[in-house]
């Protein structure tokens, strides 16, 4: 008897679960049917608002929202309002595929915008490509993205990940002999974005005669960096070039401080571009001299940048993080293509237009190869006096470059 009821209980539970998921999948509004000229243009995206990548995901949502508001305040897109449909993929590669399929199949959005990190853009862009929809992504600079022969994919930053550290590597290579680091360590997160940055920079630095004394990749669920730091400390490099996302960037830096391991130069991808969130994570006086590659500067005099920075401050307070600016720029790229083509019906025409034209964004002018990979170069930032400055290239710099990392605790 009890056996039967238990089994029935279990089936009921399973059924409830299945129904709940079913309803969740059916949910969402049927906003953008498209043809009516007065109805808003719906633009779908799925962002990592929760989970491991919630940091960039939330910043991207802010950037998209500001773009939406500014477009609508300025009379809309092709005279119609823009309406974002944002889903949360919880930083999960499976969820994001389901989300983009739902955006296209159920929500029937008119246009798509990309998500954050290469890890999530890889599967998401494949869904867009299969459905022949334009996919402008604000992140996702892994070279892997552009080796798949996609027709609808465009990356709205200056360069792919493998080129992100090159400006810095060139600067190091051209330093006078007595200032140039002799040895370097390359700890890297196993991530399709972070790894190519490190590989690109390492190749350039080795060619310049900087010897590699430590090189290791760690998994995304690594919490404890003490052992990695202990090994790096034994290798005693002059330069640490760290391929990181956000949390591991903070974790590694804090472990380095704990071990009193402060190399002469410290370059880290991603984390230092997060403004206040970064300096709170590692301690403001420990940021002095940290290098990073960055796509956006709040101080840049690119067209529309001042208005964007102001709008961000009005709505969310503080300076916009890089990821919010990238998302805004992705919106600008999409907007430029739609306005130039004059219609949203032919996604192929939008993609063709982007392949042949340059777009002015708050990141500066962007243009693309046939693969959708951008053709520019990144900016190099450095923390100085508790503030992120642009130090390279010289024509975009906001401050003089300083060679060393001098954290407060160990300086």
């Amino acid at each position, binding site marked *: 008897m009890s056996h039967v009821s238990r089994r029935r209980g279990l089936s009921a539970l399973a059924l409830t679960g299945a129904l709940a998921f079913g309803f969740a999948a059916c949910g969402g509004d049927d906003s953008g049917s498209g043809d009516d000229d007065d109805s808003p243009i719906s633009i779908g995206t799925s962002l990592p608002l929760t989970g491991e990548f919630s*940091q960039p995901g939330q910043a991207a949502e802010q950037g998209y929202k500001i773009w939406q508001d500014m477009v609508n305040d300025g009379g809309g897109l092709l005279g119609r309002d823009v309406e974002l449909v944002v889903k949360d993929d919880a930083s999960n590669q499976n969820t994001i595929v389901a989300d983009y399929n739902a955006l296209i199949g159920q929500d029937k959005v008119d246009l798509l915008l990309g998500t954050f990190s290469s890890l999530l853009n890889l599967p998401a862009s494949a869904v867009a490509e299969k459905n022949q929809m334009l996919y402008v992504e604000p992140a996702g600079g892994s070279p892997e993205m552009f080796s798949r022969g996609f027709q609808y994919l465009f990356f709205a930053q200056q360069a792919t990940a493998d080129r992100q550290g090159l400006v810095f590597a060139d600067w190091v290579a051209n330093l006078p002999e007595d200032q140039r680091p002799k040895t370097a360590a390359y700890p890297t997160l196993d991530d399709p974005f972070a790894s190519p940055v490190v590989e690109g920079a390492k190749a350039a630095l080795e060619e310049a005669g900087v010897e590699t004394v430590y090189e290791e990749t*760690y998994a995304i669920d690594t*919490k404890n960096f003490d052992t990695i730091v202990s090994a790096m400390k034994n290798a005693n490099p002059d330069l640490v070039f760290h391929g990181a996302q956000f949390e591991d960037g903070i974790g590694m830096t804090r472990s380095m401080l704990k071990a*009193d391991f402060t190399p002469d130069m410290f370059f880290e991808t991603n984390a230092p571009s997060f403004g206040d969130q970064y300096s709170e994570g590692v301690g403001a006086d420990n940021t002095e001299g940290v290098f990073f590659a960055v796509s956006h500067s709040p101080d840049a005099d690119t067209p529309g940048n001042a208005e964007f920075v102001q709008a961000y401050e009005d709505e969310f307070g503080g300076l916009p993080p890089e990821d919010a600016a990238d998302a805004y720029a992705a919106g600008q790229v999409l907007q430029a293509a739609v306005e130039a083509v004059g219609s949203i019906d032919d996604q192929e025409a939008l993609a063709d237009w982007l392949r042949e034209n340059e777009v002015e964004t708050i990141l500066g002018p962007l243009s693309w190869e046939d693969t959708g990979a951008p053709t520019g170069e990144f900016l190099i930032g450095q923390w100085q006096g508790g503030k992120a400055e642009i130090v390279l290239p010289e024509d975009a710099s906001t401050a003089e470059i300083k060679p060393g990392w001098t954290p407060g605790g160990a300086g």
Partner: protein
Amino acid sequence: MTELLQTLLLGLLLGGVYALAASGLTLIFGVMRVINIAHGAFLILGAFVTYWLWDAFGLDPLLGVVLTTPIVFGVGWITYKLVVSPVRTAPMASTVLLTFGLALVLEGAMGEIWGNNSTAIRPSYADESFTFGGLFLPKAQVYGGLIAVVVLVLLWLVLTKTWLGRAIRAAATNPASAELVGIKVASVAALVFGIGIAAAGAGGAITGVLYPFVPGSHYQWIARLLAIVVLGGLGSLNGAVLGALMFGVAETLTSAYVSPAWATAVPYAIVFAVLLIRPQGLLGTRLREDAVAA
């Protein structure tokens, strides 16, 4: 030699914190046969409560354990009464499903209250170390390890030297007979659930100081903690401690001598290997049900 010693010490310190976090999970299973998938979420809750006390009142996060633990105990006890108690005797599949749902609810609630941004607790000593003979021991890790030992010893004393502990062990070994001699198994279960969650909360206070966290970090913790208690033997407190220390040392040794890329994978391989030889885990006991199932 110095490197080996350094690696072992870092591994033991890491294992100590794992032990505290895993102790509650194994305790709850031991008494209730409930696999609490929400354990990692309660750990992160402990970290957020600690962050809140530190941020709002300037309370030292590690000393704050004396406040964090009772707060999280309260949350655990109420959760048990409201949510877990009705399904306590239901098949394991139901409780796994229920506690998984609980983890998702907690994650959402923490995101709503504290936001989904990465949070770091940095007291003044967070980036400092004790150094001697070429070795370094991060201060926060040493203090955290000591607190873990103190809490675990207290837990062990309660379990072995008090009437409450005797009641808990009786309820775990034979609930029906325990009822016959006047032990209210349902009340004991509520208390054990609270204590188990409080241990997770204390662990969360320490890990919050050591590593940055977001509400979604609990997935990584529950995977580790489940592996640790299975390695040690489900339901065995000593087993959980042993499993946790092995797990911590395996992680740091792999990171130092094989590659950091394997550091989070090798401990799971060890779990597989141990289970092939001892399916009940290192210190687990074989139950009659297991023999029948085999």
